[in-house]
């Protein structure tokens, strides 16, 4: 059986807390049939299925950007979602950061980003191969926005286990089309695992040739 593709709509709430974030999160979930991942600076006042915080707090998943965030006191990390620039070699600094996080926390999932000039497709393909083999128990994903759809499509074909992330609502059609070429169904999901299958794209039939009657002008029935 082929593996499905997952669409995980994600809402990023900015660091400065605003009271309207609660209703915003509610609206976001309502717009995605109760599914969707939320990354927030602090716990929300409403019940959400899948949440990660940008500050470490006990009992919550810590969403950490390994390239940007200052790592706090190491024993407070707990479970983490790591966003890191794709390491392409043993010397890579992002690999060192990923290793540090791996040692001091329970890494739940890794999201790789691409730094276009530094990451040709060849390097990415090899790096992903290594990463997927080194962390078989961690869910690895790529950020489609920085990878670009062409690279993401190829990598999704090459590595069926790869998660595609950072796909917003108006790019869903690209994911649906990818599912169509690869023959994989697309499911709407978040990290609480209650996926829902998305209906396939509509297909339009190409009509039969227009009958030609040379005794009438214009002779194509399409323009009468």
């Amino acid at each position, binding site marked *: 059986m082929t593996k499905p593709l997952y669409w995980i709509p994600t809402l990023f709430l900015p660091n400065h807390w605003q009271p309207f974030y609660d209703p915003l999160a509610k609206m976001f979930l309502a717009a995605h049939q109760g599914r969707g991942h939320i990354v927030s600076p602090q716990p929300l006042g409403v019940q959400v299925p899948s949440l990660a915080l940008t500050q470490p707090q006990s009992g919550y998943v810590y969403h950490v950007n390994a390239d940007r965030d200052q790592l706090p006191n190491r024993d407070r990390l707990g479970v983490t979602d790591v966003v890191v620039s794709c390491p392409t070699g043993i010397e890579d600094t992002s690999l060192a950061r990923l290793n540090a996080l791996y040692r001091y926390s329970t890494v739940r999932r890794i999201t790789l980003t691409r730094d276009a000039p530094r990451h040709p*497709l060849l390097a990415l393909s090899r790096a992903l191969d290594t990463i997927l083999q080194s962390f078989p128990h961690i869910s690895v994903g790529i950020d489609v926005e920085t990878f670009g759809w062409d690279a993401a*499509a190829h990598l999704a*074909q090459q590595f069926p286990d790869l998660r595609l992330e950072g796909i917003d609502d108006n790019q869903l059609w690209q994911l649906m089309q*990818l599912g169509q070429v690869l023959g994989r169904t697309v499911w709407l999901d978040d990290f609480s695992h209650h996926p829902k299958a998305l209906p396939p794209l509509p297909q339009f039939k190409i*009509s039969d*040739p227009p009958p030609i009657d040379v005794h009438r002008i*214009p002779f194509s029935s399409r323009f009468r």
Partner: protein
Amino acid sequence: MTSQTFPLEPAPITGVAKITTTRHCWMQCRFCDFNHFTPVLFDTKITSCLPLADAESRLATMPTSIGLIKIRGGLSFREPFTYFRSLVRAVADGFNGPIQAFSPIEVNQWHRVEQRPVRELLAELKWAGATRLGPGGSEILVQSWRDRLSPYRIESAAWENLAQLGWETGLPPSAMILAGKWLSAADIKSHLRILAANSWHHIEVKVFRAVALQPELEPMHILALCRLVSETRETLNDTPIYVNEPPGGLSHDARILLTQAGADGFYTTLEAIEP
């Protein structure tokens, strides 16, 4: 799960100047932008083709990175063959590189409208400075699709015979496949089998772009495009394959993927000269 190797750089990219004589065409191919219906009646208002003076002034300011000039057009009943011949002549005067001028479809039209022998028309194009024939008319050679998408075209067998006459005159013909999502694996196979029966200067894989008001005609996905290119490479193993990019071009990654699939180069439009 094995890692694949990719070229670090894509195959060479040729900058193309595309000269369009007119955006009106009576042939109504459904995948084409030029298929606005313009009935040929006594009071039809159609703007005339690209004036020669315009073409000359635009060509004078053309960027130097142009490696190929393509001259094409919708089919017009208004201009005589001599107009097209003069246009090629004007282009050839200011450009030393290859000029891909018109296609068997236009040659057939001149042949039918002006009642002149095909070989004579081809020889005059060659004299005017054309170096090869374009692939127009071979978008899809499978007859059932031809009937659906371009019913007023000459049949594919006639198209091929006409194109092959180019070799005699010294205008090497080229052919293409229009990469649309509607093609099944079997369609692609039979199209390529028809192409493999003849010899071509090069094959263009044209990346289809959606046409207004026709949601059923969809472009091909990049992964399907790679499969198409590698299948073309397998079937026509010593003919160069060029990927004809849509307006805006392909991404660097797409070019690398297609190069790996077997493309020998890319045609990207740098300059469009239109009426």
